[in-house]
């Protein structure tokens, strides 16, 4: 039935785990809408015919509104609208809060293309290759203006903002190729900022991974970036406390902040720590970390996060000597490179 509905109303195939629920709610809403319009039109027509002017009419009776009936119709309609809100909000929350473990893909939107960085290291331009039936979480940022990643077949959309990471997830349930559109006007080539989600079977996906295996894992890219930007002069990878918290076992752990709050050390927190380190300092450490906003591009940032993630279960080697304390990196000037696009 849902397929018939989709055909009649021009909906794309339902390719994500959200699609059926969303389309069912859509069907509910549009059916009642059409019914309501039909009923009102019918009443209007009946009244127009039944109460058309007759020659003998010189006045009309004063009809008093029945308060109870008015209230019933009003609150009945309100109840209907609120029912739709409840159903929609519940679905919305599911779309916002991922409840299953998911693969991570980092997305960079820029005028006028999409860049997808997989955690295994593959980088794709405008195409997002995914395995079927596995949830994927997209961590997204824009290099310039607001874009919006929209995959109609998956019934998902999320604005992609500059200066801030936003996350959303979905689970593709059908193989196939599905268009990606940019859904927020972003300049002259806005309508050409088109991509594609390629959903493969497990076997096809594995083959693709192998083909792309010549790309280095993101985590090792991250390790190189961490060395290059001198992160390791303050952060150890073997559990020793140094000028900054150790990265060993950090990812996914519960961290106590200087103000007593607790925070989960996930990708969002780690990213924020690189971009705005002063905002949430870990208890027991001084606020001396400089910001890397502007000096680390989103791909490097993602890679470093992956590197830290790869150290989740890193064994501790307390005998590894600490690096020589070096002069701290000079405070970076506010971003005037990647993030700041001037025409």
């Amino acid at each position: 039935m849902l397929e018939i509905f989709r055909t009649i109303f021009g909906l794309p195939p339902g390719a994500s785990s959200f699609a059926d629920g969303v389309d069912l709610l859509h069907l509910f809403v549009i059916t009642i809408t059409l019914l309501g319009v039909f009923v009102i039109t019918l009443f209007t027509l009946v009244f127009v015919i039944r109460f058309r002017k007759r020659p003998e009419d010189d006045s009309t009776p004063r009809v008093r509104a029945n308060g109870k009936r008015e209230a019933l119709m009003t609150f009945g309609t309100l109840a209907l609208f609120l029912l739709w809100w409840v159903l929609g909000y519940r679905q919305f929350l599911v779309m916002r809060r991922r409840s299953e473990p998911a693969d991570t893909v980092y997305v960079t939107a820029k005028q006028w293309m999409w860049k997808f960085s997989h955690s295994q290291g593959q980088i794709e331009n405008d195409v997002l290759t995914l395995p079927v039936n596995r949830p994927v979480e997209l961590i997204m940022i824009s290099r310039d203006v607001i874009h919006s990643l929209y995959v109609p077949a998956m019934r998902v959309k999320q604005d992609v903002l500059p200066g801030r990471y936003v996350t959303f997830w979905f689970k593709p349930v059908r193989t196939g190729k599905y268009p990606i559109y940019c859904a927020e006007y972003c300049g002259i080539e806005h309508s050409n900022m088109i991509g594609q989600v390629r959903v493969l079977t497990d076997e096809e996906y594995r083959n693709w991974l192998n083909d792309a295996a010549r790309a280095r894992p993101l985590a090792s890219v991250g390790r190189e970036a961490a060395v290059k930007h001198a992160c390791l002069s303050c952060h150890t990878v073997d559990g020793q406390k140094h000028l900054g918290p150790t990265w060993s076992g950090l990812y996914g752990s519960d961290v106590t902040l200087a103000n007593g709050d607790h925070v989960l050390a996930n990708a969002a927190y780690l990213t924020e720590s690189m971009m705005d380190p002063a905002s949430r300092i870990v208890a027991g450490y001084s606020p001396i970390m400089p910001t890397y906003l502007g000096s680390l591009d989103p791909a490097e940032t993602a890679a470093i996060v992956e590197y830290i993630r790869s150290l989740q279960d890193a064994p501790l080697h307390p005998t590894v000597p600490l690096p020589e304390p070096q002069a701290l990196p000079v405070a970076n000037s506010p971003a005037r490179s990647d993030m700041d696009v001037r025409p």
Partner: protein
Amino acid sequence: MSGQAHASHFESGARQADATLLGMWLFLASELLLFGGLFALYAAGRFENPSAFRQGVALAAKTVGSLNTGILLVSSSTVAVSVEFLRRDQRHASVICLLTTVLLGAAFLALKFSEYAEHFKAGIRPGGAGPFFATHATPGLALFWTLYFFSTGLHAVHVSIGLLLLGSTAWRVSQGAITSARLYSLQNVALYWHLIDLIWVFLWPLYYLA
């Protein structure tokens, strides 16, 4: 009541006074919403960048700011007094008070512009431009100063308009075109001035004290 004719479409002078005052209050409501948006921007900015905003406030010229607050408060009383004088048909006194208000307002503007000059000299310019921001890199700081220039600048534009209104009203009172029978003409300008004062009283703690 001295027999000054009311506009022909009003049934009485009292009705015209009511209407004009109501109109003025509605206009003031719209001005409040104009600045309300700016206060909302400040609130959001402060929420996101608390330490940067505190840093910005610390650098503000507190003495000049407080002096300006005092000047505006006094000017609000002088304009209120001028209304009272005109109510008692003491035209001369009313004009003197109005002119005093104008002088105080002009002093406010002069101090404001000297403050801007000081900021510019220190390398603080709107938009995070200016050499100051090269050495003070906290992102929210640029936002604080830009909001400061925007809010106080918009306020200064309103002060300037107020001065023009006060000046022309003083002239019309002195010429006898506005009398106690048409007190609302003066009352409306006074209301406008009070609003400008009120807005400053909120800008002052946000940008100078907190």
